């Protein structure tokens, strides 16, 4: 796979405030990369740097093998879609789509051809003569995508394009963006703080925090093997359980001890540093804990149900383990009642262990 966008040793600082630090990122041709992180993590700033809307402090940006670090945005071969749509309000949809091309002096028939093609792909043909004010949120977003489309860009940049829409529309357009990507096969870089969008759309996700990429990997890999506590906590809804405790030497493998609970870590794939002892956090996703599902688990314990939160098809069950809150996801038909004693069990293989000091995966 050829690289389409390369970010090399990129740093950005405003005065003394460092926003991005030594960013390195290679995005393959036709790849859908999602930049995911909480607000203020620098994900939008990185996208603006790639677009050329913000000057970098150091480092380089390559698009399709060309060094574009000093290029104007229009010369970078990119199209961009903004959160607020940024449609030109006084122009019709058609003018919105064609304005950039007309300014660039493209011949009229060619402009018409491109506009027609974009409006067919996005099914906005009927809206061409309307002004943005007369469009719904979803339609505006489509026009905004169309404006990127007519530029025949090699790389599409999306800056939280669905954040201003309601939940239902958001999921509809999410699918459409995915379809569009499959149809066009362009490289797409997509910024969002919504982990569901990230999981559903991405080929790879880059989880960012404090101007640094924490983990860059396929969605499932990030979900199942988060590299640190931050990534583990940021992805997943309901969120991962974290139990604070100690890793102590045990029988044939170390044990994780949280107050009176001892969890054998047999089968847990420790990282390159090998077995570890000391303070640690054990992370386990609610859906990976079995409730009253027999005794085949490497670890099981009896707990009292404290709170039950039905969420439709599933129910979230709250209990305490080792003096700490723990949640389990069970199918609603098999939901226990409050006060009931249940047996829970999980396989340490599916858990994640984090260093108590720096939060890195062990």
């Amino acid at each position, binding site marked *: 796979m050829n690289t389409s966008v390369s970010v090399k040793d990129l740093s950005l600082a405003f005065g003394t405030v460092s926003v991005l630090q030594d960013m390195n990122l290679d995005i393959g041709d036709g790849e859908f990369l999602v930049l995911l992180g909480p607000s203020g993590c620098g994900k939008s700033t990185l996208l*603006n740097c790639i*677009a*050329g*809307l913000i000057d970098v402090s150091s480092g380089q940006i390559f698009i399709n093998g060309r060094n574009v670090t000093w290029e*104007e*945005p*229009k*010369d970078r071969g*990119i*199209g*961009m879609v*903004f*959160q*607020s*749509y*940024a*449609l*030109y*309000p*006084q*122009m019709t949809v058609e003018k919105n789509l064609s*304005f*950039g091309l007309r*300014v*660039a002096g493209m011949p009229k028939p060619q402009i018409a051809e491109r506009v027609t093609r974009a409006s067919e792909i996005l099914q906005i043909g009927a809206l061409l003569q309307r002004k943005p*004010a007369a469009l719904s949120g979803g339609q505006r977003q489509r026009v905004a995508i169309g*404006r990127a489309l007519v*530029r025949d860009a090699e790389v599409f940049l999306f*800056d939280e394009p669905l954040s201003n829409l309601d939940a239902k529309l958001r999921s509809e357009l999410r699918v459409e963006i995915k379809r569009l990507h499959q149809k066009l096969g362009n490289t797409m870089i997509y910024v969002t703080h919504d982990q569901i969008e990230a999981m559903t759309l991405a080929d790879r996700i880059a989880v960012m925090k404090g101007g640094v990429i924490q983990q860059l990997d396929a969605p499932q890999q990030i979900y199942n093997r988060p590299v640190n506590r931050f990534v583990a906590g940021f992805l997943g809804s309901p969120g991962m359980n974290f139990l604070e405790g100690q890793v102590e030497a045990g029988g044939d493998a170390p044990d994780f001890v949280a107050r009176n609970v001892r969890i054998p870590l047999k089968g847990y794939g420790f990282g390159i540093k090998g077995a570890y002892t000391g303070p640690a956090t054990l992370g386990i996703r609610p859906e990976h804990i079995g409730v009253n599902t027999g005794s085949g688990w490497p670890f099981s314990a009896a707990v009292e149900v404290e709170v039950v939160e039905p969420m439709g098809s599933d129910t979230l069950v709250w209990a305490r383990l080792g003096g700490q809150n723990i949640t389990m996801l069970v199918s609603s038909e098999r939901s226990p009642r409050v006060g009931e004693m249940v047996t829970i069990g999980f396989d340490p293989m599916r858990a994640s262990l984090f260093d108590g000091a720096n939060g890195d995966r062990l």
Partner: protein
Amino acid sequence: MSTAPTGRPNRLFRNLNAKVASIPMILTAVVIFVGGTAWTVVYSFTNSRLLPRLNFVGLEQYERLWAAPRWQIAVENLLIYGILSLIFSLVIGFVLAALLDQKIRFENTFRSILLYPFALSFIVTGLVWQWILNPDFGVQNVVRSLGWESFVFDPLYNPSLVIYGILIAGLWQGTGLIMCLMLAGLRGIDEDIWKAARVDGIPMWKTYLFIVIPMMRPVFVTTLVILASGIVRVYDLVVAQTSGGPGISSEVPAKYVYDYMFLAQNLGQGFAASSMMLLTVIVIVVPWAYLEFGGRRRA
């Protein structure tokens, strides 16, 4: 509260405090604004001279008004001053605002300098510019002393140029305000619009001309109304700078009204002239109010 629960209190006394607090507003609105205006318009159809008297003479005052050369000059001056002042204020104000909006250094210093004349009264403004434009000591004298002996720049002493001399002072005093309003308008434009235009490769001047200015239409319209209703009232500036001279060549309607009401003791003329001013404002404000507030119902 204090009263026993014996049914609802009298409607008139509900919310009594709020009504009491609004009495000054109600009196002002009804007695002064509506009553005063109506009174003046009614008395403009009378032949009142020293004292207002209800002796109706139809449109006679208006006929006399429009036949008076002094009024004609006043109206002509107001038109020249008004149109030029609108154009220059908007253009200069917008250009300055656009320059200040380029993320420049010392923005606050520049803004303070451009706006300070607005803090000064028209009297002060008029007197300063009267001094600067004084041909014996001011700009003309300075240029002549540099060796250009035949240089002539005496707008305040030239009947056909005097209104432009007043315009210079008026613009100096007022463009800072327009710049501030425009700057607020520019700052209100979504940052993403600028980014989208850059990605589209649209040059900055085209972005201003075809995207930003059309987006600022409401700001322009509001500014226009503010400017226009201020222009109609121009009075102090002329009094201070030229006292209407030389002769009557820099007269304006507001001065005409004052002079006839309080100096010439010809109240009827004053009322008729002020009613004409009211008419002018109505012609400006009503379409605007319709667009601004009537238009919202469409959207």
